[in-house]
């Protein structure tokens, strides 16, 4: 049995869905990806809790996650407006805006799994339209675009949706750092607590940004995922 598309979703209803979709338990395979953390630890670019918090906060404010946030918002707005031409452009840009094969895989594999699960459990016509649009153009589903479109399709506000999307991304990366032995459980939660203001700032900055001003200074994150391709021993796919 599936739920109905959610016209008039209550605030609590929206919260429950966001909690499910961006939880580490949501079956998108997020546990396989470290977004460069595995290589950054190996290279000694991150050495402790402070280093991890600084790395993730930088990536969120000025790096690769800044672009992901803007892609999320573009997809949210274009889905809400039913602007298929603009959504196709955003999806094409999201697919091409990748600093390594691993980052491309991380986004596309999770993006397609996210859409598949949503369509099975929380279907909405706008999600069918997105999948059809991607197939027609031979484009992969990028996670940020899929997530932004899903929130709009279910009437969930961009601000709450983006905050939960970014928080879920960080929770997954902190969990990767735990499994890499950088932190213990409590320090993992400390990292997330310390990143709360960075998430709130990133959401506000993305909402205020010109949607055309996609961009990142996160070159070391990208280089980490390039170097990771030849790392000797790997737990993660990025």
């Amino acid at each position, binding site marked *: 049995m599936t739920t109905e598309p959610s016209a008039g979703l209550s605030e609590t209803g929206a919260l429950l869905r966001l909690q499910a979709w961006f939880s580490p338990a949501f079956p998108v395979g997020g546990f396989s990806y470290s977004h460069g953390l595995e290589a950054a630890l190996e290279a000694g670019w991150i050495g402790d809790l402070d280093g991890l918090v600084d790395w993730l906060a930088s990536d969120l404010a000025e790096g690769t996650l800044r672009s992901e946030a803007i892609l999320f918002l573009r997809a949210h707005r274009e889905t809400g407006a039913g602007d298929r031409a603009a959504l196709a452009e955003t999806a094409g840009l999201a697919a091409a805006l990748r600093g390594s*094969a691993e980052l491309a895989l991380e986004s596309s594999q999770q993006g397609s799994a996210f859409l598949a699960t949503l369509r099975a459990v929380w279907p909405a016509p706008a999600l069918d339209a997105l999948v059809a649009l991607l197939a027609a153009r031979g484009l992969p589903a990028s996670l940020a675009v899929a997530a932004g479109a899903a929130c709009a399709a279910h009437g969930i506000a961009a601000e709450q949706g983006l905050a939960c999307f970014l928080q879920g991304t960080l929770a997954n990366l902190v969990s990767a750092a735990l499994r890499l032995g950088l932190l213990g459980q409590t320090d993992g939660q400390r990292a997330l607590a310390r990143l709360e203001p960075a998430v709130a700032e990133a959401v506000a900055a993305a909402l205020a940004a010109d949607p055309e*001003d996609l*961009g990142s*200074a996160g070159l070391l994150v990208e*280089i980490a995922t390039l170097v990771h391709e030849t790392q000797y021993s790997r737990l993660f796919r990025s």
Partner: protein
Amino acid sequence: MSAATSRSDLPGPEQGATGDADLQRAAGAARVVLRRGPAGPALAVLEQKSPCRALLPRVEGRSAAEVVFVNTAGGVAGGDRLAWGFEASGAITARATSQAAEKLYRALDRPALIETRLSASDGALLEWLPQETIAFDGARLARATTLELSGGARATALEWLLLGRAGHGETLCRGALRDVWRVRRDGRLLWADNLRLEGPVAALAARRALLGGAGAVATLIHVAESGLEPLVEALRERLYGFAGVTAGVGALPGLLLCRLLAREAAALRAAVVEALAVLRGLVPGAGPGLPRVWSS
């Protein structure tokens, strides 16, 4: 293009003060089209509008030609608009470089717009190998490089950016830099890249996940439909562990990407020269040596 509309938190001019729009600003363009002629590379189109110039191509052997683009203004400032165009078609190697490093001076309130349109078709190998761009304190840049390929053409393209000139005591503290790439094959977007350094550039560059303390950045791509893996392996072998440089090399669908970060401009230059030597050795038809003007 998108980069031109970007926002900035740099202070604008005071009310009633002079802005970049009030000053005499450059609006130049130069475009060169090379085609395969009966005797090798032939000049099909040469368009120039001051301060942009293109020196007539120097033919190297039977199939290669090198064009040198010149900004006779000697640098760019806020509000300047420069457009470079370089197109190649047919079985030729068409290389373009710049006569000197491009200097980005302090802007009042507007970015310098630099638009570079590159196109390669019908089996051509295009090489876009400009000298470095040097951004001084307060510089604003919106640069958009588009590379269109069709008909089995290939391309090698480079951009490298120095944040100030530490060796001359000229540091860049603040700025607004956008360097945007779009690469298309047969009209399809293969790769997009938006480097964005906004506001406290020196502080951003120092952060670990961003430039990790580097003051010099290079992006080198080679676009080809096949044969990328040996190039990736050779570049990794020569560049991983290169003195003073952090390198990342990998293949994406239809192109090879090489990123280089260095604290010192000299180390970056050495790594760029090394990377080009690797490509020269392995890319069939690659132009000979480094561009001649690089050494001067």
